[in-house]
């Protein structure tokens, strides 16, 4: 059942319950999968066979086919209506491409070491802010009390 061009349902993760197409079958029980993203919001990614449930539908595509070719194959076989999925406009396809590009650039520019450093600093700042407030409050109260008590003694 698991072959290039087979339409599947994802069963795990945030993309669970969404349709996808197998684009490549790898050796160790892994599979390359796309929605494409403009169609079913499943992005092109590796996935385990156990996280994918095959359906009887197939489309004719080559191995490692691009998203545009997959969309064209969807049109030919009339699967948009069968799966209950909207046919993507040119705008949707561009949006999906832009999002992928942004993600790719962000991954290159942001090394992991920087992210780790930022987190502990933020926590330390919060602790520092919280502590002085607690200390300051009782002192102020004591000061008020001492002021209040002094005039009584004078009388």
């Amino acid at each position, binding site marked *: 059942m698991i072959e290039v061009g087979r339409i599947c*349902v994802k*069963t*795990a*993760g*945030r993309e*669970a*319950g969404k349709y996808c197409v197998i684009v490549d079958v790898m050796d160790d029980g892994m599979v390359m999968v796309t929605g494409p993203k403009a169609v079913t919001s499943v992005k092109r990614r590796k996935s385990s066979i156990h996280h994918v*449930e095959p*359906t*009887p539908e197939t489309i004719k595509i080559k191995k490692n086919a691009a998203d545009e070719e997959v969309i064209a194959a969807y049109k030919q076989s009339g699967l948009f209506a069968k799966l209950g999925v909207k046919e993507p406009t040119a705008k949707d396809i561009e949006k999906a491409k832009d999002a992928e590009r942004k993600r790719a650039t962000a991954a290159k520019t942001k090394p992991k070491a920087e992210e780790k450093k930022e987190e502990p600093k933020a926590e330390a700042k919060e602790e520092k802010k919280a502590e002085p407030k607690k200390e300051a409050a*009782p002192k102020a*109260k*004591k000061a008020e009390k001492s002021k209040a008590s002094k005039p009584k003694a004078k009388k």
Partner: protein
Amino acid sequence: MPTPAQRSRSFSKNRITTPGGKVKTHFTKKKPGMARCASCSKPLHGVPRGLPAEIRKLPKTQKRPDRPYGGTLCAPCTKRKIKSKNMERWEK
């Protein structure tokens, strides 16, 4: 039955000395139980446990896993459900 606010015997108690030197007890309310799967009743991962007011302050992404049936069914049960739905759909 007393009103819920007066049912303080079952609350956990904190002994606190006030700035004036008095010893007082502070009552803290019980947390509700853990969120459980609707079909197999196992405790759910990724769903916080706390008073409703505390949970209301959290962002939506921290309240439940981002997945269909997230926060009501556990992961294996959702998998089973999606598989069975897929089977039913293509049998027709």
